[in-house]
Each structure stands twice: as structure tokens, then as C-alpha cells.
């Protein structure tokens, strides 16, 4: 069975681009439109192994999502890569301290994202 990836972004365009890239690498894609939606998807699919997460989103942003995952202890066995337009050091460090494994600034290079996804899920 292929590895499940949760793609969290309020932009349909980005969800499609990430989904296309990772599907081509054999991953199964689940989409969420913000952090709150993602928390529900995580509960519904506990076998998700990788999360690709935006930062600036309505309702619950990416950093709040990481905090929520940590608080509710839902991060076991899941790697998180942030995919965002933000590159600010404080945000990167905050995400890292909350358990994120990577940070990519948009627009992303498909081959790099796929390589990161394979590496993180192979190590999990």
C-alpha cells in the first residue's frame, strides 16, 4: 500500500501542484484546506506518514497546526515539511522546535520536494 501524504494549503493550485508531484512518486494524497481541516483528516486517517503544510492560512495557520499536533500527541511517526512563501528565521526556528523536519519556500522545485518526501518516509 502506498504511503499517505497530507497536503495542507488554502490554495487549490498549490494542493494540485504538490499532489501531482507526489502522486507521480507513488504517494497517496489527502488534502486539507487549513490546519483545522487537517486535524480532522489526521484523525480520520491515522496512517498518514508525511505532511506538507503551508504557514499562512485562515482559521488555523501552519504554526498553530504544529502546536495543535504536538498538544494532542498526533505527530508520532509523521514527518512534517513546511511549504510556504515565508522565509523568516524566527518562523523556521519555531517550526523546527515544534517538530517540523523541513522548510521549503515557494515556488517549490518538484524534484526537491519528491526527494525530501522519499527520504523522510523511508526513514520513518
Amino acid at each position, binding site marked *: 500500500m502506498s504511503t499517505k501524504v497530507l497536503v495542507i494549503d488554502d*490554495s487549490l493550485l498549490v494542493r*494540485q501542484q504538490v499532489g501531482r508531484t507526489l502522486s507521480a512518486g507513488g504517494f497517496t494524497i489527502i488534502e486539507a484546506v487549513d490546519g483545522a481541516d487537517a486535524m480532522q483528516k489526521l484523525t480520520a486517517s491515522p496512517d498518514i506518514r508525511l505532511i506538507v503544510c503551508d504557514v499562512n492560512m485562515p482559521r488555523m495557520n501552519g504554526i498553530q497546526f504544529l502546536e495543535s499536533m504536538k498538544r494532542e500527541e498526533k505527530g508520532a511517526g509523521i514527518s512534517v515539511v513546511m511549504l510556504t*512563501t515565508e*522565509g523568516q528565521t524566527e518562523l523556521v526556528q519555531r517550526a523546527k522546535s515544534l517538530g517540523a523536519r523541513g522548510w521549503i*519556500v515557494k515556488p517549490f522545485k518538484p524534484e526537491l520536494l519528491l526527494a525530501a518526501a522519499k527520504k523522510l518516509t523511508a526513514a520513518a
Partner: protein
Amino acid sequence: MEQSTHAATTHRIEVEDLLVEATTALFDAHGISLVRLDPEAAVRVQSGTMVTSTVGFAGDDLRGALVISTSLDFVRRLQVQLGSDESSIEAASDTLGEFSNMLLGRLKYSLLLRGVTIFVATPTTALGEHLMVPPLTGCPSPWLRFDGEMGVFNTRLDASFSPEFAFATASPRDLPVGAGEMMMF
């Protein structure tokens, strides 16, 4: 309180230059060549449905909004270029909204390198015919116009500068991650 007219004008021109660089670099990263039009040059008439996206931002000494605007035809071509087969109005709005987000992200990066931090909101998009987006009162923001094979693309920065606004050199330990870069922990 706004800066003195001369200082504010100087800063505004510098930030607009950064926006011009960011705009051409963003499209270039997607394989699309855009050239800035001379402000005095005649502009191709844009008729039909227009799409505009606005993202607010705020920092200690600089705040305002980025506005981008183009034709629905331009956005449709952009979607094709990005491999999207969605033809809905929502998808077109989403695409331009994401571009405003990425554009402001690039401008934010350039400002961070100059010691200026801003925080960015989420974009809002509008679509229709005869769309007008008047600049903020007292904010002399010109439209920056670009042209390319996809058509005309417009950006504008409605920014207000506090008297304390100044560029500085970012500390090496605060250097941000740039567009297209990846960092693994």
C-alpha cells in the same frame, strides 16, 4: 505619523524597485518572461473580465497592502502554464491569490535582507468587469505595469512609512530562506 515627504518618497521608490525585481523574478521562476513597461508608455487596452488580488501586511514602521491585477485571460494562460486543468472562476481567483502571496513573500524576503520585517495576511481576490481599485487616501502609489506574451500584469504597493522607517543590514544569523530554497532539519 508619515515620514517627511522627501524621505517617504525615497523609501517608496526603493521598495517599489524591490517589487519590480520580485515580480519579474517570480514569473521568471515559472518560465514566464515579463518586462516592466515605461510608466509613460501606452498600455495595451485590457477589456473583459479582470481579476485582482490584495494582501495586507504590517511591520513596525511599514504597513499597507500589495495589489495585483490582470485579465482573466492572463490568469487562464497562467493556469495552463502551471499545469492546472481547473476552469472554474474559483480556481482562477485562487491562482491569482497564490501569486499575490508568493509575490509579497518575495518582497518580504528582500525587505528582511535590508533589516525590515513585515507580517503578511492572507490574500483576498475580486473578479469582474470594470473593476476599480483606488489607492489609499494620501498614498501616492502608482500602478507598476508589466507586459509579456501572456498579456499585461499590474502591481501596486499601497504602503505607508512611519517616521522611524529605515533600511539596515540584516544580521547573518537572521538571514531568511529564499524562494525555491529548501532546508532540512
